């Protein structure tokens, strides 16, 4: 293949018919309370890992729901399971179990 000094940028359009939704389906089954999320961002605001790194649990949630799971494995490892996100969630989402489910999903689905 020839190199012209630039590459073809990947299309970032979210097409739900083409995205890999297996992790989203698994996680939703394991932790249905994530459907209560209103995206307020309190979890990210209080996140200890997010204080020192670019980890953002709200963003991770959004990416999973969109089927954007390419960088998920590396991203989710930043979580320290402190559970502060769960304490501040105004909707009572079980975020620790969410993280656990994501890890299990990655292990099973890849």
């Amino acid at each position, binding site marked *: *293949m*020839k*190199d*012209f*000094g*630039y*590459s*073809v*940028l*990947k*299309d970032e*359009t979210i097409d739900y018919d083409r995205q890999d939704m297996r992790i989203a389906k698994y996680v939703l089954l394991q932790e249905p309370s994530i459907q209560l999320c209103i995206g307020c961002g309190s979890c990210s605001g209080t996140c200890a890992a997010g204080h020192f790194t670019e980890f953002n649990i709200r963003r991770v949630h959004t990416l999973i729901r969109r089927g954007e799971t390419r960088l998920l494995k590396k991203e989710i490892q930043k979580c320290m399971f402190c559970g502060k996100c769960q304490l501040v969630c105004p909707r009572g989402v079980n975020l620790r179990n969410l993280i656990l489910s994501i890890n299990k999903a990655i292990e099973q689905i890849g």
Partner: protein
Amino acid sequence: MNIEGKRNIWATYQKEIAGDRFFYVRSCVRQNFFPGSEKTFLRIMKEELKKEVFEHAAHTTCSGIGYHTDVVPFETAMTMVARQFALMTESGYENFTTSCITSFGLYAEILETWAHFPEVEERIRQHLIKATGRTFIKPANLSHASDVIFKFRKEIGAVSKFRLVNKYTGKPLQVVEHIGCHYSKMFPNKGVGGAEYPYVLIGMIEDWGGEVIDYPERRHCCGFGFRQYLVQANRGYSIACSKKKFESMAPYKPDFILTNCPGCPMFLDRWQYALSEMEGITYGENGLGIPVLTYEELAGMLLGYDPWDLGMQVHQVPVEPLLDKIGIPYDSQRKFLTIDGKSMGQPESPSFLKFYQHE
């Protein structure tokens, strides 16, 4: 394609197109990209339609490319455009016709600006007098050359030797029409059919026997986007835009793409080669590309002009499959010969995009 709603929109956006005595201004880039197109427009206008078309030797760039790449300020662009209007006025014409879509968009933008802000027009008039001693009358009619061909499409169709029909199946050819962004996206009422469903090329395709493909990314930019291409580091954006369009149109198996802009045929044609070299993908049948034509080339082709006189040998994607489908004769041996029979050189064969072999 649900045609009813679109016909209502086309009826809403109709524009007046002059019928004769055109002051024609060429594009900066088209004569390099598709060198036969402007000559073919003049030939059709003069020989087939017997219209008066005037070109001024002192015409320069309108500065549209510089304006849209943020290197020419609007004030400068307006003064340069005012000078083009002065040339028209001095020549005794009032119907201004542009070859370039970006020029057309810039002229429309400037006339609209002057209509809303007369003090700006007055200031520009002073600039022009100070710089050149010239003055001008604004055009009575502003049209793009594709508007003019659209206006006379039935007359052209009546004397055409060929129709957009597949000679092997007897069915209409399936055509993707692609309108330049600056034609009517900025000012929908300046284009035939508005911004959403411009009718200017559709009218030609339908009247000349073809059928239009309605595909999802139909109104998406070709990928030129000026800064997307002109800065080499940004070209990934440009080629990604074109790829998005190709992937969207390919399942409909278009016989060719028809365009009315200088940049669109260039990028839709050349990027097919670049994509084939970079990723090994082709979008036509059997490893061929999808031919891309300008509206002048299409009109000339159907009128029976020699494809090599139309400049079709400089296309990256070979047009011969299309010529064969319609049944247009051509001499393969003459493809890379100049008008006096000398070799003009031949491009190397691409790695993936196939060169067409005549049956």
